[in-house]
């Protein structure tokens, strides 16, 4: 599980946005924006982290129960999958 190379995370006015690179049209329809925790998880994936690394990062950074963190990670990955950001 890793991120496709043609996406990049950018911060604009307190919002983290996942931008597609190289496409002729910058499509804001359905483009992902991430909150702080989403942006942190993105960076973990950027550094080659796997599902367990995401879980560890989330529980280390936030006061969240293991099963709740697991659900958040799955939801995060699902969103990324839907947005076509993951190469699995």
């Amino acid at each position: 599980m890793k991120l496709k190379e043609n996406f990049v995370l950018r911060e604009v006015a307190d919002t983290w946005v996942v931008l597609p690179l190289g496409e002729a049209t910058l499509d804001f329809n359905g483009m992902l924006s991430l909150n702080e925790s989403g942006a942190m998880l993105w960076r973990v994936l950027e550094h080659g982290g796997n599902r367990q690394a995401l879980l560890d990062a989330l529980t280390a950074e936030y006061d969240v129960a293991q099963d709740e963190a697991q659900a958040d990670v799955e939801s995060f990955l699902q969103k990324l999958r839907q947005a076509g950001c993951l190469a699995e």
Partner: protein
Amino acid sequence: MREIHFEQLESLMPLIREGLNAGRSVRFSPRGISMLPMLRQGIDSVVLSPLPEQLKKYDILFYQRDNGKYILHRIVEVGETYTCMGDNQFVPEHGLTDVNAIAVVTAFYRGERFCSVKSPIYRLYCVLWYRSRHLRHFWQRGIRWLRRHLGR
């Protein structure tokens, strides 16, 4: 985590301008009812492209008013300045210049259906819709008058 809605676009303007400056197009869903019946909020979206050398009557212009507000309306007159008006409006906005202009609509999506602004059917819509504005305005006011006086 959430999807981007138009409300956020103001804050994303640096990205939009950056994309346009790099010659890319930008697609987003506009907000409001001023471009009805062509653009329905939450359903339809537009593709903005960098400004051409010359803007023409019936082009849909994305511009910034002097008060900072971002607007997407149709050019209905080109002279020394541009006059714009939403398809669902009857009062034109005069005195817009190249300084206000940011981008122009080159295509749009009616739901998921792609439509080019070069389509003959779309061009016909532009002309007929604009030319019928006095009739439409009269009709709208008549309906309002009837409702008021018939108590509906």
